[in-house]
């Protein structure tokens, strides 16, 4: 069993290697010395009580924290071995897509929503864009619902459809990684189920890192799970292991619902 695990580990490529990551909002430290490897073509779930720094950590991976004025980062975030602080953030974000907690479609047609990212990179070819729209919407399991009304405003869709539109929009960039920050917390159970299935189907082609408050969700969809507590990364393990035999006592208390 153990040998099997290590074998799998070796065959899996590290896509993000985080080394001694400390993050400060002004004087307040939000992340303490985080060290972790994230693997390619895996779903990694980030769990932990509210305010423990999951979103903050996630936003480091595509440098969205750059947008916050007094946010300071120490340590290294290696993406394919290069420090993300040294790459062009625009280039990084085309490779590392993001889906937010609240669905945030742009106030334009479904078609234009999907084409937004590629167009910003200068893609103009009409047939290419058409293909891209169909491919992304199919991947996001939204195509059948909207194929007859691609010209309607993206904001006129239901919440669950909007979230899948946002996923499709991110997929249209052909990213390697998809960061998802509680993508289902604003949705009803059926939409949630759809998105969970979607995540599982996407992991063949993409690496997915997902923040969730729903432990069952993490158990259902994630290969690896990381537990955060008060800005510390307490434990990262295979999901099964973390939920059945957590190696840290704090993790155990959290997953058995005794605090947080």
């Amino acid at each position: 069993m153990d040998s099997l695990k290590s074998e799998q580990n070796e065959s899996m490529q590290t896509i993000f290697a985080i080394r001694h990551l400390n993050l400060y909002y002004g004087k307040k430290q939000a992340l303490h010395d985080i060290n972790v490897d994230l693997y390619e073509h895996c779903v990694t779930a980030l769990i932990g009580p509210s305010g423990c720094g999951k979103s903050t950590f996630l936003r480091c991976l595509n440098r969205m924290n750059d947008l916050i004025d007094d946010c300071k980062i120490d340590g290294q975030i290696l993406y394919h071995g290069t420090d993300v602080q040294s790459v062009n953030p625009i280039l990084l974000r085309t490779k590392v897509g993001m889906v937010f907690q609240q669905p945030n479609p742009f106030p334009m047609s479904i078609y234009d929503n999907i084409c937004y990212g590629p167009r910003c990179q200068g893609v103009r070819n009409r047939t290419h864009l058409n293909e891209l729209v169909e491919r992304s919407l199919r991947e996001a399991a939204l195509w059948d619902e909207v194929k007859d009304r691609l010209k309607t405003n993206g904001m006129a869709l239901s919440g669950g459809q909007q979230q899948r539109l946002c996923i499709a929009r991110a997929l249209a960039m052909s990213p390697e990684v998809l960061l998802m920050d509680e993508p289902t917390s604003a949705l009803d159970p059926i939409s949630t189920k759809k998105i969970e299935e979607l995540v599982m189907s996407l992991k063949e082609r993409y690496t997915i890192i997902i923040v969730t408050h729903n432990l069952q969700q993490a158990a259902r969809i994630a290969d690896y799970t990381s537990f955060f507590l008060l800005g510390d990364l307490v434990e990262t393990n295979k999901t099964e292991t973390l939920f059945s035999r957590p190696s840290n006592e704090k993790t155990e208390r959290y997953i058995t619902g005794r605090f947080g």
Partner: protein
Amino acid sequence: MVVLGFIIVRGLKPFFHSYRETLADGSLAEGTASFSYFWSGIRYNNRFDFETHHYLYGIGHLIVNSLILNLYTIILAVPTSVLTALFISKIAPKPLALILKSGVDLLSAIPSVIFGVFGMGVIVPLIRAWARAWGAKSASGVSLLSGAIVLTLMVIPTVISVSVTALDGVHKEQMEGSLALGASRTQTNFKICLRAAKSGIFAGIILGVGRALGEATAISMVCGSPIQGITWNPFAPTVTLTSEMLLAIGEAVPGSMNYDIRFSAGMVLMLLILMTNVILNDVKNHLSEVNPPPFFIARIGKVMKKGTLAVISSFRKSWQKHKAEKEKKQ
């Protein structure tokens, strides 16, 4: 409402009441103002028509000139104010944005005479120099362009401050969504922020256009006063509804045709502002909603179509009834 009623009653009077006046050449005139010439004429106070007994006051050119002046103003004002608003709201560092905002608010409180004086003292000479350099036939610099520039200066504070409010209201999530897709700041500002704020920005433009259409003092100071004609030439002087209303108002005798016809012009001005507002509001509503309502104009058209169809079908019914009764009789 009282003012509105008053203006309408007084404005209609010249067309129904007979005025007895001595003309400049000493002859005696008596009659009403010509309604058709009022709309179609391109010369204000043309002459008295002794055959039809009508005073010929035309404001057709005034309406068109007002619209042209406003068009020029919009062309100048909209890009400048929208770009400035974008800069204040999204690009400038906070302290600078604050300073600019209060500066803009200060500007919008300046009365129009001051703009007029500024226009006469600064803009007109500048335009004169420019026109000379270009070889345009403008002797004085008093011109359509001067008017448009002065109006632009007057309306941009309003448009800017409304647009800034609209842009400040753009959700952070939308901007983050755009940036997370690898869009640059500039792309996000133009493609997302402007788009999300467009109906608010349009509301600012409506306010600005309302102010520009109604402005008289500053325009009469920098636009000159040609007697007739429509002009598109930015270097030529022009005369609008508002400036004509003000022109030599001190010499007009209350109760005379020359005096009362100004109320008619005022009535038309109100109508013009009202119509512009309806149309612009319509466009704004069309912009703002996810499922925009059809244009007001289109709705009116629909109602009229329905009404006509109803009238036709009722006619048809009564005709058939009539026919049936006739046949019965036979």
